[in-house]
């Protein structure tokens, strides 16, 4: 006796959330693909950008789009900075086991608590791109969410086109496939790596600014989305863009439909449960093995 409009609401909400998850997960996938690094501070890029977006509109009076752009620029610069300062030892190949994991993990801790010190532990809310809701027949869809999801789709499409068609995009893919050979062929792999991290962080940042205006900005807001991003890229198969996108949509849908068919309280656990199940069957994820 499930209401059709209820299921439709779930599908739409799932799709919207999935699009935004995809944007963030893509950033993680990019960093992983090009630099072969696991970025445990991804959630903190997301969170800090949300704060910057909030600060831009609250203190500087920027309109939502301008705040978003500010947040994008910030996240990109932060990514570049982090890569130059912390990641470069990784390339020498002499780094400690799990260097990337550990150092980004530590960085994450610093960033979270720095945010608490700088912005205070209160949550804040950034002004939404749009408020209220749109009525589509029996359904109500939050207009802010819809707009954010559309923006996410536009940005992702742009990024994918860039990766496929521009020189930089090709350089990114080449470095992802084989760093040494690309270097030998004349690609400035260090520059590409820095760019890759910058762009990856930027994607997390955009997602943060978008979602911060829908939900709430708080120092620990990045933890769960970061976890979900990891679930997505692993599910989709690390390094596969197609896989990431599909897995993101799947997760968005699962979290909503799961509430309908299983317990609503376990919502945040579904992603993790599915992850374990999938990895048990296919240890490299659904589409694992492909590169960027």
């Amino acid at each position, binding site marked *: 006796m499930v209401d059709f409009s209820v299921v439709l609401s779930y599908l739409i909400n799932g799709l919207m959330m999935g699009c935004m998850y995809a944007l963030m997960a893509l950033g993680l996938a990019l960093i992983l693909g090009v630099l072969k690094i696991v970025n445990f501070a991804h959630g903190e890029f997301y969170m800090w950008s949300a704060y910057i977006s909030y600060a831009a509109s609250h203190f500087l009076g920027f309109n939502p789009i301008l705040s978003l752009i500010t947040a994008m620029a910030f996240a990109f610069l932060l990514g570049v900075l982090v890569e130059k300062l912390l990641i470069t030892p990784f390339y020498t190949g002499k780094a*400690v*086991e799990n260097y990337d994991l550990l150092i980004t*993990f530590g960085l994450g801790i610093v960033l979270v*608590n720095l945010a608490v010190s700088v912005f205070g532990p209160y949550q804040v809310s950034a002004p939404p791109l749009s408020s209220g809701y749109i009525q589509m027949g029996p359904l109500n869809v939050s207009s802010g969410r819809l707009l954010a999801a559309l923006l996410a789709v536009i940005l992702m499409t742009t990024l994918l086109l860039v990766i496929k068609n521009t020189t930089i995009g090709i350089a990114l893919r080449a470095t992802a496939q084989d760093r040494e050979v690309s270097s030998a062929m004349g690609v400035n792999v260090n520059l590409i790596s820095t760019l890759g991290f910058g762009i990856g962080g930027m994607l997390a940042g955009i997602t943060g600014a978008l979602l911060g205006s829908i939900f709430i900005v708080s120092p620990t807001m990045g933890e769960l989305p970061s976890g979900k991003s990891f679930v997505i890229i692993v599910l989709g198969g690390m390094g596969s863009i197609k896989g990431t996108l599909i897995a993101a949509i799947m997760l968005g849908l699962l979290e909503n439909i799961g509430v309908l068919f299983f317990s609503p309280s376990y919502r945040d656990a579904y992603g*993790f449960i599915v*992850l*374990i199940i999938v990895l048990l069957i296919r240890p490299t994820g659904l589409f694992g093995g492909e590169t960027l």
Partner: protein
Amino acid sequence: MKHLHWKYAVPALILFLLVPLFVEKYTLHIFIMSLYYIIMVTSWNVLSGYAGQMSFAQATFSTFAGYVSTLLAINFGLTPFVTTIIAALATCLLGFLLGVICMKSQGIYHALMTIAFAQIFRITINIEYKITRGSLGLSSIPLFGISKIPYYYYILFLTVLTLLILDRILSSPIGLTLRAIKEDKTAATSIGINEIKYRQIAFLISSVFAGLAGAFLAHYTLIVSPESATISAMAIIIAMAIIGGQGSFFGPVIGAIGLQFLMEYLRDFGRLYLVILGIIMVLVIRFLPEGVVPKLSKIVSTYLDRKKIIKKDLNFVKNKA
């Protein structure tokens, strides 16, 4: 290659035994927490350091043990000493389960599996509040009376036990095999080492001690809650191990005590203390990836060697003269 030289372990032990005579109540509490963390960190190190399998589930193990021990004590009226042992064994089983789940996973996948495992556990505890009282936490039964001193000696006993057993295991062929697998898996498997079996062993060892420590903590702080199974709780353990020095045996020990006390001093700075902790961790990994203790060790031993060499040279010159 034994790690515990009696010449130095015994004076250290004596010092520890005398601690309650010198310090006041609250400081004793910090010592107790330090000892708890020593067990947590060294057992974590077995899996993540020696065996090279990055795990984020250590805090989950200890919290699980806390719940098992508490629930058994409350519902069946068993004494906490007995429930501690049962909890440790149950945690061992949980560790085995996690090991099985992670069996085919490597590197980042392995880490993620442990994270997923930890998150599912935490969420389950929260949701099944009828049994666990969810985020309210479960009030536990104390091991002793009001005074902290019996707790201190009890955890000291557990810690010494843990270190002794771990030392035996890690200096034995098992420890060497684990190291070999970590260094070069392909080479190890090519000479016939059953990598999976040894990984499971690492999981078992790592989890059983975490279980002991976790049960202790529950009956000491008298509260067990899902908060002890969060990423932040895990972060402290990892920070202690990394800053102390992942590869060595005593590195994590010193990391645990050092950081616990450091955190207490830093607590007066309010929220900044975690920032400082994080920065230290990042700096250490960046510039001293082996850890603080091995680095200091090198400095001290170079100094000692230099003294020896200078002494030898002096003697040589003297004898020549």
